[in-house]
């Protein structure tokens, strides 16, 4: 009985301890961000490994998600004789929801897991403590450029995802199924609002990039420095990022499009 209570208490305390460590880590990383302007080369390398290497999977998934949206949307809309609205369906669902969310999930799988594994392994092989010995702040040297790169590349990746998806939907709808080209674009332009839809989509993707970067880097930085610890941290990164992104997406949607 008492043992049960004790383990419950330990789990609770451990949870809050971890939450606190995560927030301190975030503060530390954020306070090092302005210094990154002086060392753009560090950020550039990370933009390559975080952004450019994620590009391919985002391009391919965006294209196919858009094509599926075109196909499914057409099949439903044609029953109402409203297949001219296909562009609206494809564009709104991509720009508002699917673009930021799916890009963030892919980002967590492709880039977030790599970040966690990299930093966790640095910790396991005592490279991070080695840096501290040389009076180099590992948060400044290792974490901050990766964090900035994640926040910069997420909105770009989400925008690329949406744009490619819209062309995919256009290809299926107009090219294969015979929706009118003019109606596809003009109805889309009539219904998609720059501020309400596109800006809010970009804001969402920035938030998701922030969250995905934070979780991935903290999991790596806080990993138990063994092979097993790093592997568990990598798994946690993907799972937690996916959960947080989906949950936050609901909150953001309710705030942005609620009224």
């Amino acid at each position, binding site marked *: 009985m008492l043992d049960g209570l004790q383990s419950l208490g330990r789990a609770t305390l451990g949870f809050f301890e971890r939450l606190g460590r995560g927030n301190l880590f975030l503060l530390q990383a954020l306070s090092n961000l302005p210094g990154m302007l002086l060392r753009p080369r560090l950020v*550039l*390398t990370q*933009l*390559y490994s975080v*952004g*450019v290497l994620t*590009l391919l999977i985002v391009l391919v998934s965006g294209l196919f998600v858009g094509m599926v949206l075109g196909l499914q949307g057409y099949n439903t809309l044609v029953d109402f004789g409203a297949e001219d609205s296909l562009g609206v369906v494809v*564009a709104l669902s991509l*720009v508002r929801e699917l673009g930021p969310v799916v890009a963030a999930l892919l980002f967590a799988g492709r880039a977030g897991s790599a970040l966690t594994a990299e930093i966790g392994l640095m910790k396991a092989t005592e490279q991070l403590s080695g840096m501290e010995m040389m009076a180099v702040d590992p948060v400044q040297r290792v974490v901050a450029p990766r964090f900035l790169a994640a926040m910069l*590349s997420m*909105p*770009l*990746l989400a*925008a*690329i995802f*949406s*744009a*490619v998806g*819209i062309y995919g939907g256009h290809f299926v709808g107009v090219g294969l199924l015979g929706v009118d080209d003019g109606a596809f*674009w003009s109805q*889309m*332009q*009539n219904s*998609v*609002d*720059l501020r309400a*839809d*596109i800006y809010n*989509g*970009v804001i969402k993707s920035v938030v998701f990039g922030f969250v995905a970067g934070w979780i991935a880097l903290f999991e790596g930085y806080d990993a138990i420095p063994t092979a097993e610890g790093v592997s568990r941290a990598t798994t946690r990164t993907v799972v937690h990022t996916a959960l947080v992104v989906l949950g936050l997406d609901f909150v953001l949607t309710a705030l942005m499009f609620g009224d």
Partner: protein
Amino acid sequence: MNNRTVEIGVGLFVALGIAALFMLAMQVSNMSSITRKESYVITAAFENIGGLKVRSPVTVSGVRVGRVDAIDYDMHSYEAVVSLRIDDNYDTFPEDTSASIFTAGLLGEQYIALEPGGSMNNLKPGDRIQLTQSALVMEQVIGQFLYGSAARNTAEPEAGEPGAGGL
């Protein structure tokens, strides 16, 4: 990894991302149509505006000449007052222009159609259109139709049994 490859890759990535954002802004959204043109506002009072919304189109002969700027309710005349923002290059509408609220298609959005009259004087910015026609509310139309056929049936009782009118 070669430094040059990294830089070219990042350059390509950023250019692609910005191009995608630009494409979303220009081609997908209505940004190209909200470029601020010079415009003026006239108002029109309607008994019922139905589903008219701010930013609904204002057309003449099917050509869009402006948008609905604001919708208010006048507590003195008990009417809805709609402000129409008309582009400046359409500034010679006669004073007796009439405004009606129509629906695009069966389920489409509602819009205001202006129909120019024959007066020699033109509407000035801030003027109010006097001749208006309210939106068609489906329930009212059906109601009128039902009462209308009921009234016809009771007016000529020999045509059918009284009281069994309606549809």
